[in-house]
């Protein structure tokens, strides 16, 4: 039974919500097709509000990629804000897509983007609002296939009950293959299981129901293995080999309302050569791949013409590491400065920031500068393999001050492995030295005022990092260290912001959790948890209740130091980097030993074995080798 289109019902309630424009769709470059019976209807779902989801680059790429296919119509759906949710429930309106206001339950696929763990209650809520059975095993042929991908899928286990299949790795590499399999199955759609079996044959597809997990008496995993011959014992991550050859959209949907990143983000490289030991993205997006300068310029020309954005952001994990970054920026500024289109980098590594780049960027844009030393002392920066020195930082900010910038944001983490009080107080010293650097700058050149904003997040151990075995600090200990820092900062030019440790605790539970967390997640959703990543929506007490009622101890996942021989919930995924390498990196961390980045040499993480093409991949095969 199909549900009715909800266009008219939606129109009635929109007058009553705070931001109706985020539910109406019809933006410039949104795709509208005439559906027929054979068309594959794909709802791309982002488990957060419109303004957040529309800032996400991956969604734009997949939207374009799928809609390029004549027989596929990809549409968007986001988590409705609380006022909208209330009205939808009250009026019996199911979750719908923006383009056609069709209920998502009528679709062939509902595909979630998993960007952060704290969006998982929204995902469950969207299923419920969509009138789709929450758990995979209860779904019928009337329901869509609920699939998910993104960095969160690198440990898919906490969502195993809810998701029919996961895409492991870069979805643009797999999605069209999956659509081929679906077209085949749709000719004779026997059972959901049949499709999942066919899909499981593809590299990079994980179907959680095809695996059985047994546990030891102490709660750790005893065995994790397929329960059908269709499932692979090890699921390999998929990745794009050559960024110059892959599809990239020629336009983006241009929102009417202001989104979080309301600018033209363009991906110039993928992966990061640095190997910081706390960073999951740095490991899972290996190998490092670059886009050619010509391709970048060509794509941007079309994107600018089709969107009309007034700012370009050259996005990636570490854009300063693009081998042609300086000439690229000079070139782009030359092209776009006359029409007042700014060119920015979203994140900068301290060592990669050159005077020229600062000067060029300042021509059209003069916001603040954000730098991430991550730790307050050299000792701790060595532990985490953040290979920057305080001198580098001071040199960089001094240049920035000379160029007239006055606002510097510094990101740090509290609770990193081996951290002492001395390391915590080191954060204060770094910030003070930055302020000093401002006053050491020539008065004629520098800005009138200086502000240094120090932000600390709480360290969360993540899968597929050298710290994946580490226990997290308790919330009380986090609070003690935050207070220590807060009270030590006396300089009025320094502002201190910190994260709520109880949220980071929950993040740590789900980051390294297993499928037994499914019932906790469901219970938390039942109790009303939504938008956990929004500090004013986060309800730690309700979560506590959900854990208690489900008989699950969250400390087991977040705080416990894990043994090297323990089977980790994500061990069945092969991201190309060996577990031995991660362990070695962890051991090096404990003795404050650093590793070199991919530009300087190969540390044999294992990724090189995976690389087939000769171009652009891993530095020692790359034309960009330094």
């Amino acid at each position: 039974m199909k549900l009715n289109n909800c266009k008219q019902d939606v129109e009635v309630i929109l007058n009553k919500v705070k931001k109706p424009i985020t539910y109406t769709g019809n933006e410039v470059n949104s795709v509208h097709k005439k559906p027929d019976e054979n068309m594959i209807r794909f709802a791309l779902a982002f488990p957060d509000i419109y303004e957040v989801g529309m800032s996400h680059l991956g969604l734009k790429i997949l939207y374009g990629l799928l809609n390029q296919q004549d027989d596929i119509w990809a549409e968007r759906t986001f988590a409705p804000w609380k006022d909208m949710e209330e009205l939808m429930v009250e009026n019996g309106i199911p979750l719908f897509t923006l383009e056609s206001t069709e209920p998502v339950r009528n679709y062939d696929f509902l595909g979630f983007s998993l960007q952060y763990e704290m969006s998982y209650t929204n995902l469950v809520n969207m299923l419920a609002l969509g009138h789709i059975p929450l758990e995979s095993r209860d779904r019928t042929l009337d329901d869509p296939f609920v699939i998910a991908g993104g960095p969160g899928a690198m440990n898919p286990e906490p969502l195993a009950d809810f998701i029919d299949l996961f895409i492991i790795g870069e979805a643009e590499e797999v999605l069209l293959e999956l659509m081929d399999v679906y077209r085949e199955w749709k000719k004779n759609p026997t059972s959901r299981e049949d499709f999942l079996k066919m899909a499981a044959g593809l590299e990079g597809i994980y179907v959680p129901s095809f695996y059985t997990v047994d546990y030891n008496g102490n709660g750790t995993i005893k065995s994790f293995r397929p329960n059908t011959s269709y499932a692979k014992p090890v699921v390999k991550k998929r990745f794009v080999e050559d960024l110059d050859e892959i599809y990239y959209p020629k336009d983006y949907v241009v929102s009417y309302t202001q989104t979080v990143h309301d600018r033209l983000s363009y991906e110039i490289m993928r992966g990061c050569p640095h190997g910081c030991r706390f960073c999951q993205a740095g490991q899972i997006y290996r190998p490092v791949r670059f886009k050619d300068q010509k391709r970048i310029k060509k794509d941007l020309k079309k994107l600018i013409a089709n969107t009309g954005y007034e700012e370009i952001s050259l996005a990636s994990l570490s854009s300063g590491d693009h081998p042609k970054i300086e000439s690229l920026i000079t070139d782009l500024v030359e092209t776009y400065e006359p029409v007042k289109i700014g060119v920015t980098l979203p994140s900068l590594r301290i060592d990669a920031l050159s005077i020229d780049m600062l000067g060029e960027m300042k021509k059209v844009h003069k916001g603040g500068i954000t730098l991430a030393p991550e730790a307050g002392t050299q000792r701790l920066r060595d532990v985490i393999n953040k290979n920057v020195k305080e001198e580098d930082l001071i040199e960089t900010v001094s240049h920035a001050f000379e160029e007239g910038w006055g606002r510097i944001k510094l990101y740090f983490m509290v609770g990193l492995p081996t951290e002492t009080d001395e390391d915590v107080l080191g954060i204060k010293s770094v910030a003070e030295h930055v302020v000093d650097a401002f006053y050491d700058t020539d008065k004629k050149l520098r800005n009138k005022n200086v502000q240094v904003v120090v932000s600390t997040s709480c360290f969360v151990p993540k899968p597929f990092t050298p710290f994946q075995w580490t226990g997290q600090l308790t919330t009380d200990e986090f609070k003690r260290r935050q207070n220590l820092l807060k009270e030590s900062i006396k300089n009025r030019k320094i502002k201190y912001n910190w994260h709520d440790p109880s949220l980071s605790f929950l993040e740590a539970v789900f980051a390294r959790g297993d499928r037994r967390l499914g019932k906790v997640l469901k219970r938390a959703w039942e109790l009303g948890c939504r938008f956990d990543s929004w500090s004013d929506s986060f309800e730690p007490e309700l979560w506590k209740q959900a854990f208690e009622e489900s008989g699950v101890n969250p400390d087991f996942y977040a705080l416990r130091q894990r043994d090297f021989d323990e089977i980790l919930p994500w061990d069945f995924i092969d991201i190309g980097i060996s577990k031995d390498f991660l362990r070695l990196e962890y051991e090096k961390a404990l003795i404050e030993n650093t590793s070199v980045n991919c530009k300087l040499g190969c540390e044999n993480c294992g990724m090189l074995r995976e690389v087939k093409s000769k171009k652009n991949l891993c530095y020692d095969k790359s034309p960009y080798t330094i």
Partner: protein
Amino acid sequence: MIKVRIQFSRNDSLKFLSHLDQQRLFGRALRRAKLPLAFSQGFHPHPIISFANAMSVGMTSSCEYVDVGLDLEDPSEISGETIKKRLKKSLPKGIKILGVEVLPKDTRSLTRLIESADYRVRCIGLHVSDFTQFCENLKNYESKDSVVIKKRNKKGVEVEKEIRNCFDTISAQKDGLDVLFNIRVLPESGSLISPELIIKNFLNSINYYDKGLVLEIHREKLSLKEIHDQPHNGSQKTAQVDDGVELLSHEVQE
């Protein structure tokens, strides 16, 4: 720099735009149209765009004006028709260009030119037992010398405000289950008050107001004090209001 005056309508599909959203939309549409935009000076240069009057969220209109600065020396360098053609392609379907006029140098800014604004306000499902009496009441309201409303100022303090000089005529008619008001609002130091305030005040005065009442506000016409008699290169001068009304029933095409 020269200025061009664009007259446009906004239909139902874009009624939820805020004033800022609409500014952004025009800024990007003008860029997509590859017009030679003029920019403000300073660290954050932005195109020079000014609307005659802000449209509130939920409002539709048959007649709006926006002035845009172009980086050209002389008005003869571009025609209204060229601008209209290019903008038509780059604007979303809910906004329709009714006319473009390239302005002579020294034209006064738009907000100072507003003479009056005509609104049609639909009160959805407003139940009126005796409509003749209702109209009589409205006549009395219209003929009052003083109408004072209570309003919160920016600091959140409730203040009294005399609004009789903010509107001219007001009338009502029945339309199916709804009541339609026609109201002419007059500017006070360049700004227009929302017709919603006036209508709610009237309904309140005869005990007809209910919190759940939904109003649909449509601006029929913005009258400007002086529109130049010599439009450039055949560009349209006045609003084709009929055109705009037709547009309102026009669904957004897929």
